[in-house]
């Protein structure tokens, strides 16, 4: 890490597994990541890579069956294994969340003002009236027109994009240090997406919030992130500044993602990262091997015999976990994009 | 478990694996196994009760009225006319099951086609839901009161009254499952291929709606058994001297001071039967649930 100041959020060797009816599922394996103040980090990977589980584990929001090990420090305070009451003070106040489905993530029987105000009443001990007034300001902040009327609307009276703005207003109500946005634009139209991303960027600029944005849309990453983490089967396989990653993907999986996505740097729209043949494995335990080996064109004995470590692969702050990183390898799509 | 061999044809091979999965889940659920065994036993006893019962149901013995349970020759005692309680309970349970099956058959014969039509043809939906509202306005007891006034009280009329009152429930579950199935690809594909509505309903929708119909039937039978008991207790169902658990309780109420135990056994049998059906119905519903994680 070359960030000057101490990171706001420091994730070290985070692992999560779930005991299930059919055996243990290892969802996250040894993830490490730092989030500096005011930084936007993108996290990409196909469905089932462990992105959401990583995100939910930060504030202890996983179901109680989850086994979490490793360390998550927020401004130095350990959150893994912290008491529920301590975690409740972190949730919504220091680490706030935005989820994928704005349609279902808001409570249908409460007005949006009430739902935003609720955070303030809990964490800032505001009165209901003061919380409502603040909710109007927050709605204006996230770009909702005639907020004074909208505050008394129920979720079903708003469009998808509006609801996601409400979710954002709710998330930033207490001025959190970290905003975790789990696929915030996946369920929205492309034009609406751009607006939501703009709001997130604004908030980072104005409030200095660090943002962890999760997506499987490389266009979103290119649009908003400062740095990128690529996840595969529960592991971080590559991490780099955004330009560097797009220009010089090192891990074979990243390279596959980039060539599967037609025009990086633009909105990839609804294109999903499914063009790489094969599926993300659901693992019972973490093997001592590269978990991408079954789908990798460059896989060999070494890849199947030992897990590649995350190592510096040149450039500033660019690491990848691959025994045979791509050396040249701008993909055809990138070639076309130059 | 012969009921489960009804083909469930989501699509060819998938149906076989699905059926085995459902059966496996049922076998692994101890409550399902126990309730199934109880029901199977009850079924066998009910079928064979005319031969199994130690006494004829109307064989009176005025020398030994109100014999307490455990009396030699009368395991569960005798009633006000000296009739053997055990024999009467066995035949009463048989009548209960008869009414249960008859009522549910009535509700399915009328309710399933209406549910299919309501879910499949938009134009029929409004008409059928008015019909449902109308039926709901006459609770089974009121229906039975009306039927008894017009046609007299009997086992058959009790079963019909209960069955009619259960039609709305059948319509509701079949309708919503039809709506769900109609939107699935394989049904849409059949429609595109030019299959007639009746063909689609009979070949694609009905077979796949079997599981919700089965679950509905499993919960409707115990309700009908309880309904029969109520009606017979009130004198609106099975008529004495024919044995019925409900009429036995009515008699027991009259003589409760002399023979309080007589009020216990018939009730326990009614509850046992209903409980076994309800437990099995729950287990069946869980086993059929594709999410599979809800008990």
């Amino acid at each position: 890490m070359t960030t000057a100041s101490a990171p706001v959020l420091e994730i070290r060797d985070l692992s999560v597994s779930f005991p299930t009816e059919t055996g243990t599922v290892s969802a996250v394996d040894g993830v490490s990541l730092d989030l500096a103040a005011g930084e936007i980090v993108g996290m990409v990977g196909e469905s089932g890579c462990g992105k959401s589980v990583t995100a939910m584990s930060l504030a202890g929001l996983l179901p109680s069956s989850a086994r979490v090990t490793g360390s998550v420090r927020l401004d130095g305070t350990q959150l893994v294994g912290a008491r529920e009451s301590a975690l409740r003070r972190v949730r919504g106040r220091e680490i706030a969340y935005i989820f994928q489905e704005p349609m279902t993530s808001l409570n249908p029987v409460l007005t949006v003002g009430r739902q935003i105000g609720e955070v303030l009443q809990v964490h800032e001990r505001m009165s209901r009236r003061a919380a409502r007034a603040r909710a109007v300001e927050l709605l204006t902040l996230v770009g909702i027109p005639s907020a004074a009327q909208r505050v008394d609307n129920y979720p079903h009276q708003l469009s998808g994009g509006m609801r996601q703005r409400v979710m954002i207003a709710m998330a930033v109500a207490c001025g959190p240090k970290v905003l975790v946005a789990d696929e915030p634009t996946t369920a929205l139209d492309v034009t609406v997406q751009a607006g939501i991303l703009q709001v997130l960027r604004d908030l980072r600029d104005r409030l200095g919030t660090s943002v962890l944005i999760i997506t499987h849309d490389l266009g979103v990453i290119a649009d908003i992130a400062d740095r990128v983490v690529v996840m595969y089967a529960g592991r971080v396989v590559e991490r780099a500044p955004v330009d560097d990653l797009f220009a010089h993907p090192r891990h074979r999986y990243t390279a596959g993602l980039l060539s599967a996505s037609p025009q990086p740097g633009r909105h990839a729209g609804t294109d999903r990262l499914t063009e790489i043949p094969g599926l993300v494995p659901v693992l019972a335990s973490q093997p001592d091997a590269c978990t991408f080996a079954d789908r990798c064109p460059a896989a060999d004995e070494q890849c199947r015999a030992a897990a590649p470590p995350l190592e510096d692969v040149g450039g500033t702050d660019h690491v990848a976990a691959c025994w045979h990183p791509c050396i040249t390898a701008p993909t055809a799509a990138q070639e076309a994009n130059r | 478990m012969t009921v489960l061999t009804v083909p469930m044809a989501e699509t060819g091979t998938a149906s076989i694996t699905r059926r085995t999965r459902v059966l496996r889940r049922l076998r692994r659920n101890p409550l399902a196994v126990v309730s199934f065994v109880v029901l199977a036993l009850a079924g066998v006893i009910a079928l064979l009760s005319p031969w199994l019962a130690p006494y004829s149901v109307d064989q009176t013995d005025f020398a030994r009225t109100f014999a307490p349970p455990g009396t030699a020759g009368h395991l569960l005692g005798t009633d006000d006319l000296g009739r053997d309680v055990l024999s009467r309970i066995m035949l009463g349970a048989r009548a209960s099951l008869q009414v249960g099956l008859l009522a549910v058959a009535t509700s399915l014969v009328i309710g399933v086609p209406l549910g299919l039509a309501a879910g499949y043809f938009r134009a029929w939906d409004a008409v059928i839901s008015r019909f449902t509202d109308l039926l709901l306005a006459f609770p089974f007891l009121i229906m039975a009161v009306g039927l008894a006034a017009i046609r007299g009280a009997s086992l058959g009329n009790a079963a019909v009254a209960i069955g009619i009152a259960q039609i709305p429930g059948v319509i509701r579950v079949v309708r919503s499952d039809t709506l769900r199935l109609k939107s699935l690809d394989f049904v849409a594909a059949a429609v595109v291929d030019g299959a007639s509505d009746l063909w689609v309903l009979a070949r694609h929708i009905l077979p796949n709606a079997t599981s919700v119909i089965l679950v509905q039937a499993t919960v409707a039978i115990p309700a009908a058994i309880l309904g029969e008991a109520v009606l017979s207790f009130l004198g609106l169902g099975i008529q004495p001297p024919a044995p019925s658990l409900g009429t036995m309780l009515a008699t027991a109420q009259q003589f409760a001071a002399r023979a309080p135990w007589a009020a216990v056994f018939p009730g326990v049998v009614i509850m046992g039967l209903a409980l076994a059906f309800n437990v099995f119905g729950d287990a069946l519903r869980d086993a059929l649930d594709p999410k599979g994680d809800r008990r």
Partner: protein
Amino acid sequence: MARYLLTRAWQSALTLLLSTIVVFVGVRALPGDPALALAGEDRSPEALEAIRRHYGLDQPLPVQFAQYVERMAQGDFGVSIRTGTPVSSMLTTALPVTVELSVLAILIAAALGVGAGVLAAVRRGRPAEWLANGLALIGLSVPHFWLGLLAILYLSVATGLFPASGFVPILEDPVDNLHHIVLPAVILGTGLAAIIMRQTRSAMLDSLSSDYVRTAKAKGLRPRAVITRHALRNSLIVVVTVVGLQLGGLISGAVVTEQIFGLPGFGKMTIDAVFQRDYPVIQAVVLLTAAAYIVINFFVDLLYSVIDPRIRVTGDPA
């Protein structure tokens, strides 16, 4: 909202009309001469002729139906064959008993059922859930008239804790009234409680795993606030619907319960009427039950639209 209510009102009115037709036709389907059935003790030809004229039995059917509706709307249900008193005055003495019994039973059932349902959903997989589930299954399977019988035998007769039968009007002596009605109400409430419990539990499990509950947790709310303000509020929409659908069962249950506890209500009046072939009373009972069911359900719909803003504000049922 206005549109939704208008639609529901129109549907209710239609159902009411249809059920009146059903009863009207049912009365014609009674065995024998309707005049004879309505005549009571005095069956002289003159009396029968008077009855035919009074009830318009000599008119064409549509006219008869119109007159019938008019009479019913005025509360003229005829005269009891057995007692000679107007059916309407029998109803005014019987109804309060039944209404009190039913309301009390619903309150008990809702408190028990919602409480146990929430508990079972929140304590998923723990002993509390098994206990609540087991009790609900038993409550669903036990014939509650039998429970009533046992309660009289082992609670009233044996201990004298409660009166075994009889009724004291609430205005006469409220305490004694409650003393007489609480046991029947509990017995009647248990079956309904089981149904409410199961629906509450399943609705709560749905909302507890919903996205908006995840949001509520991520906001840092206390579990109690998550459960009551977010999960339960949404589940109640389902629960209210279920209670509405159970009204028919409640009416049936009240009849039996009154019969067992000797409460002089609607139910007892009905059963007596069936055995005495008191057709005017039976007819009034059937018609009034249907009307009550329809009207109450309309109010349940109103309540539903108060709880669910998706209906209240835009008129689209969820």
